């Protein structure tokens, strides 16, 4: 009898602990969920180190997978070697003409830059940070990649991330040894672009599909087959980075990405310093000339 009473008490106590633990864990999870609504980052300081740690582990674990991918791709390429060789020969002939034209144009541009004293904004190719995409998440809500280069190598938020084919995305979060790249296809990705042919402007808007849409085209001259490049109008990415080609999907124009057809392994990050706004880069008042032609000390100068 006493034993039964004791075990009933034990059982009650056990149930109370189970209930309490469940309710508290659930409430904490609910709080974190609500804090993270609308893209807020309540644990932003923890996320960078966590991603850096995961990046190190995944870059090590993914080596066999990347090796297998590369092997499979090289076997595929091996079968089409003869036809590819023929195609490359004809392409080489065409490119020789293009190169000659390019050299001529470069001289003209250089001359015009000198004559007009113009500073044409281009991608600074002096610094490129090579890295590997160790994890690519193409989930139901987010399309991003983890790369194994971070602030320690000079990567910073907003930098453009390229593959050999074209623009892959841009850095949205930087840890010490890893960074998170928002892909162009992600729902939150917006990039100012233009048609290389007509210079017509648009916004390339990701919608979690393989081909982002071209929005806010207004009456810009866009045609199917146009090459889409960054316009640099947003001040966050340099101008002229290749992105893809335009095609029609229903009543929308979409961009078929250049990075879509090949597995992404090696990438490079291109640090970019945008043009500063006048407010961010104000003119420092010049020292006023005093009578007698002597310059006043800086601390005595009037604004």
């Amino acid at each position, binding site marked *: 009898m006493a034993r039964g009473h004791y075990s009933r008490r034990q059982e009650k106590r056990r149930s109370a602990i189970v209930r309490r633990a469940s309710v508290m864990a659930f409430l904490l*999870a609910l709080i974190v969920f609500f804090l993270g609504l609308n893209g807020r980052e309540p644990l932003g300081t923890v996320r960078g180190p966590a*991603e850096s740690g995961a990046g190190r582990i995944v870059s090590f*674990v993914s080596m066999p997978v990347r090796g297998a991918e590369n092997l499979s791709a090289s076997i595929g390429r091996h079968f089409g070697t003869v036809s590819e060789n023929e195609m490359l020969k004809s392409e080489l002939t065409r490119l020789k003409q293009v190169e000659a034209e390019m050299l001529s144009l470069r001289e003209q541009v250089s001359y015009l830059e000198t004559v007009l004293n113009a500073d044409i904004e281009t991608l600074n190719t002096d610094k490129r940070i090579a890295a590997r995409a160790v994890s690519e998440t193409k*989930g139901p809500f987010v399309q991003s990649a*983890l790369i194994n280069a971070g602030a320690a190598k000079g990567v910073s938020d907003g930098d453009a991330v390229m593959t050999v084919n074209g623009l892959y995305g841009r850095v949205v979060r930087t840890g010490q040894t890893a960074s998170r790249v928002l892909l162009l296809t992600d729902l939150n990705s917006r990039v100012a672009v233009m048609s290389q042919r007509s210079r017509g402007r648009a916004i390339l808007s990701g919608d979690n599909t393989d081909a982002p849409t071209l929005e806010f085209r207004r009456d810009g001259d866009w045609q199917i087959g146009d090459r889409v490049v960054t316009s640099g109008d947003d001040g966050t990415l340099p101008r002229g980075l290749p992105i893809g080609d335009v095609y029609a999907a229903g009543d929308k124009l979409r961009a078929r990405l250049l990075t879509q*057809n090949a597995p992404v392994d090696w990438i490079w990050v291109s640090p970019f310093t945008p043009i500063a706004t006048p407010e961010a880069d104000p003119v420092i008042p010049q020292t006023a000339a005093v009578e007698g032609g002597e310059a006043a000390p800086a601390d005595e100068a009037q604004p």
Partner: protein
Amino acid sequence: MMDRGADNTLQSLSVVLQTLAFGCVLICLSLLHVSVGSLNVSMMFLPVAILFFWPRQSRYSPAVWSAAAIGLLQDLVSGGPLGIWMLVYTLLFILIDPTVRRVRGGLFSQWSIFAFLIFSTAVLYGLLGRVSAGAPPDYRALAFNALLVVLCFPLMFALRLFLYRASGRDPYMKRGRL
């Protein structure tokens, strides 16, 4: 008697810590992706297996907090909206733990329950993600990821059985006290 209790507590905590470590391994594996042509394959639902295979020797209170911790870790490293996995795992653990405790039987009965669990996770994740991200999920990616993890179940089942047998334990041992 007290010594025995302390042993149980230590053993239970050790089991929870081991499970947490396995959870971290599964999270890292879920971050891996394989590109086959234009198809990108990853297994984001893989850590759900840890909820299904949660050791019966572990105590409930640390176990439910561990489930929440695994969810939070996956939230942090997956780059998605924060809090979704934590809420999904905590909720699932609370709801399924009594059922999973009673699960006996062979591969196929456990496989069907696991498939149902993954389906529930996908639905819950889709709903919460829709609230958090403010946009409908990519249903194709959701279904494909879920299907892939369900297909991997026999491998995980065999691995677990192998580990239990190698350590001379019974996978259907009764769960310890709280």
